[in-house]
């Protein structure tokens, strides 16, 4: 295993008054793709929100390149190289496609991603660059959301439910682009409801259940039965 990039240990987080995470331990090595699966309400999205500073957490629970970053403001975290593709895309409706992308570059770090490179990956976005972002189809909007995150040139890309509300053929198109995106050593965390997709694209897999890690291991080694039990909390 290559060098440890992000270490999450004993992470707790609250969503309003309710505790959503009860001591999560997750390690990320440089350049790997990790999937997180779990039922609705298992704490997957809260976990990603905690990593990006949208949900407050104790400082020491999250260490990025050795530095404690838990609970820092979101802007501080994106400047350190962790970017999120949020659940439901959440593009800015008043902004054009290009403006959405350029806002992603607000806290830009040096790196390979630029508007030109993004338009090469998703040519349709260049044609629609002046259109209001939310006038695009769901799949195209997801491309904008991914592009917006990439424009900050992150080291770690967090993707929350890329497949949500999209047609299977569009999901395939989006996931086919991921290896290209991650080709240059980008580390990715994919939260996904579609277990077989998550297993296929990732090297390692964590299963969350009620705010705890119920299973982890290499994606190609874990069996359907193991995953099923960890996912639902009962033997399959």
């Amino acid at each position, binding site marked *: 295993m290559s060098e440890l990039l992000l270490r999450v240990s004993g992470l707790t987080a609250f969503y309003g008054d309710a505790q959503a995470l009860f001591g999560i331990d997750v390690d990320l090595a440089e350049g790997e793709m990790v999937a997180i699966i779990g039922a609705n309400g298992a704490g997957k999205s809260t976990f990603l929100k905690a990593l*990006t*500073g*949208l949900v407050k957490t104790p400082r020491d629970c999250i260490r990025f390149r050795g530095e404690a970053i838990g609970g820092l*403001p*979101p*802007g501080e975290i*994106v*400047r350190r190289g962790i970017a*999120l593709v*949020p659940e439901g895309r*959440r593009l*800015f*409706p*008043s*902004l054009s496609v290009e*403006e959405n992308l*350029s*806002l*992603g570059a*607000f*806290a830009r770090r040096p790196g390979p991603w630029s508007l030109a490179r993004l338009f090469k990956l998703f040519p349709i976005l260049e044609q629609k660059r002046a259109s*209001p972002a*939310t*006038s695009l189809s769901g799949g195209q909007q997801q491309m904008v959301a991914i592009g*917006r995150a990439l424009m*900050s040139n992150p080291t770690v890309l967090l993707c929350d439910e890329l497949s949500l509300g999209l047609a299977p053929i569009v999901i395939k198109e989006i996931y086919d682009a991921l290896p290209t995106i991650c080709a240059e050593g980008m580390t990715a965390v994919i939260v996904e409801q579609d277990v077989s997709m998550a297993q296929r694209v990732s090297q390692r897999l964590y299963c969350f259940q009620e705010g705890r890690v119920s299973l982890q291991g290499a994606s190609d080694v874990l069996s359907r039965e193991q995953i099923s039990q960890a996912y639902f909390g009962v033997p399959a």
Partner: protein
Amino acid sequence: MIETLLQGVLLGSLYGLFALGQSLMFGVMRLTNTAQGDFIILASFAAIAGMNGFAAAGLEAAFMPLLVTVLLVPLAFGFGYGLQRHVLNGTLGRDPLPSLVVTFGLSIVIQNLLLELFSADPRSIETGGLNTASLALPGGLAVGVLPLLIFAVALLATGALQWLFDSTRIGRAFRAVSDDREIAELMGLDARKVYALATGIAFVLIAVAGVLQGMRTTVSPADGPLLLLFAFEAVIIGGMGSFWGTLLGALLLGITQQIGFRLDPGWGIWAGHIVFLLVLVLRPQGLFPKTRG
């Protein structure tokens, strides 16, 4: 008839200046500044105090209102920025009530402060004859030079604000935090600073409106709420989200009032309220709402 329309447009353009700051603050952070009118009057009195100060120092000239405005604008920006940063940001949230209560409180404070400092007497800004100068138009019409100047300033301010909002990096940040504050912060924007910038710009418009109001007519400490009402009506009639819409709403309000005044001097303001209520009932989104997508 043409004269009534013309006077209405000129009156309405001043209402447009009252309303632009309100429209900006509501558009960026959904904050209804119920002290808008009082801040305009505060700006008028600040200008009057400035003029008096210069007069006491032996400085009196026709360009003094301009000089005072130039001095007032950066002050107003700083005041608005600080007010938002240190007071109003703390009132923002899902509940609109705290910001309403705080700005309402500011309104009372400002009125009483002005009453204490300047008494209840109406005052105006000395314009060196500009407020009585008029321009003869073909057809026997005559329009005041000052109202024309106000009209030009209103057009300029609306155009500049719309351009700022649509075509600049600051405007992009305004729209982004207005759409989705959480995601904008995820991109690295500091929403509290963006809000402060918006309020700073709104207060520049307030300062300009205050000086022009003080030049056009007399001002007294209790005038604020009526100006707020006109600003509010203009924003509602025009429709949220577009500054040209706000200006058009203000012009419509001005024309309606002017027609009312022509019918009976007691009906002017009342006619404006009727049109405002009709728009609220028949077309609550306003006459010129911004269409998205």
